[in-house]
């Protein structure tokens, strides 16, 4: 199937489901990195399956994949009690199995953009503003703010990802791979 057809289907049928998908996948646990990974799993599998022929009922198809993804993860994690697995395996009753996603109101989307940009760290926010509103290139942003183009790319890609999360219906807090800081207790330190 032509890529364009698949992409069109993905953007118009699958992506609008993101808010519901995220809240569904959160049944597994609240860790945002795991939820995000599962979300990407769902999208990947959706594309693989739809590659040959587009499914007739997109929403049902995507949520079937989501359910399987949850079950697989839960079993692999082995931390979920048997009763919970049985819960996942129950038919997930969707509110509207057939009705197409309603177009999100323009006002809602504008509010999301506002929240998204306000939640960015100040440096990141300014760079995104220079890019989107004043149309500066990466190099021009770097010159304006007197930083390296590398720094601009790092910040803007983070901002891009956070904004995408927000616009597509998530919470939009910028993720940064924070190094884990492990505090040694006095007892541990003496053994080091």
């Amino acid at each position, binding site marked *: 199937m*032509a890529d364009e057809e698949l992409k069109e289907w993905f953007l118009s049928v699958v992506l609008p489901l993101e808010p519901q998908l995220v809240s569904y996948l959160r049944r597994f646990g609240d860790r945002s990195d795991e939820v995000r990974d599962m979300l990407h799993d769902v999208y990947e599998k959706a594309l693989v399956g739809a590659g040959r022929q587009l499914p007739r009922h997109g929403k049902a198809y995507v949520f079937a994949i989501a359910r399987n993804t949850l079950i697989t993860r839960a079993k692999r994690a082995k931390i979920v009690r048997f009763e919970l697995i049985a819960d996942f395996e129950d038919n997930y009753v969707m509110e509207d199995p057939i009705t197409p996603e309603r177009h999100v109101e323009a006002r809602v989307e504008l509010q999301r953009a506002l929240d998204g940009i306000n939640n960015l760290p100040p440096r990141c926010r300014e760079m995104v503003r220079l890019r989107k509103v004043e149309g500066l290139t990466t190099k021009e942003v770097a010159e304006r703010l007197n930083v390296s183009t590398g720094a601009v790319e790092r910040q803007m890609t983070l901002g891009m990802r956070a904004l995408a*999360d*927000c616009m597509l219906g998530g919470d939009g807090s910028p993720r940064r791979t924070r190094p884990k800081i492990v505090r040694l207790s006095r007892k541990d330190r003496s053994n080091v």
Partner: protein
Amino acid sequence: MSEQIEDIAAHYILRRENRDWSERDQQELNVWLEESPRHKAIFWRLERGWEMSDRIVALNLPSTPRFSSNPLLKITGKLAVAIAASMIPVLLGWMLLFRDPVPEHLTEYVTGIGGRKVISLPDGSTVDLNTDSKIRLSFTDTQRLVYLDRGEAFFEVTHNRKRPFIVRSDDRQILDIGTKFLVRKEGRQIVAAVTEGRVKFGHIENGKIRRDQLLDAGDRVISEGQSSLVIYDDKRFVDSMASWRSGRLMFDQAALADVAAEFNRYHRRKLVISSQGLTHVRIGGSFSVSNLDGFVRLLDDAYGLTIRESGDEIIISRD
């Protein structure tokens, strides 16, 4: 794992917006996308999210003070939403709208050769900008104005009678009555075609709209100089005019010269027809926009033409 893929995708999206994005860069991106459906999913998702946040343009953000940790300049939600929601219900006759002088500093969107941009506007409308095109937006309380300076754009409009959506190109004006239409400017010729709904097409003379025509789905108008020619009820043709949106070019008995000219809009390497007799050979079919080499091979196979490359030109001849 996903983190790294997202990071790579984000970097590609960022780089692609720079003017020095080459065909080789595009190939590199295509290869990376083809590596895995996961790459495609993550890339397409990010691309859409980034493009949706173009709405930021409508928020009139002041610049952030020098990276202070106190969010001094958080824009209050109420204010911003009020800007979006307020629509002064003044019903200006659409003829009077042209009294506004053409403003100099507007939001601009530009695509390079082979480029494509889908823009989500703050009112919920979208503009799909084709290769080598330029538009400027002027959105006010009373109207939504788009100047098509160059190229071609496909519009999907959220209709609002109190805040009309108008596309202007040279001295032509297209008023949206709702909902989907295409406008193309090529030199002095302007073509407007409606795929869904209805528009009103007119000439702007001395600040007034003259000779307006109502166009319905399937209609198109070809306008140049003083004249406009309307062709009614040809849905198939109008749909084929918008086939670039699905990455295809469709022709039905089109002269090779015209087919070549169409391809040339999308590629830096240009097709040149060197034998006089060849220009009128008729071509029909549906071709992938980006696959220039495939099309050229097809000409070779189907018509036994000679293909020679010289610099940035692909020269097609009979012998």
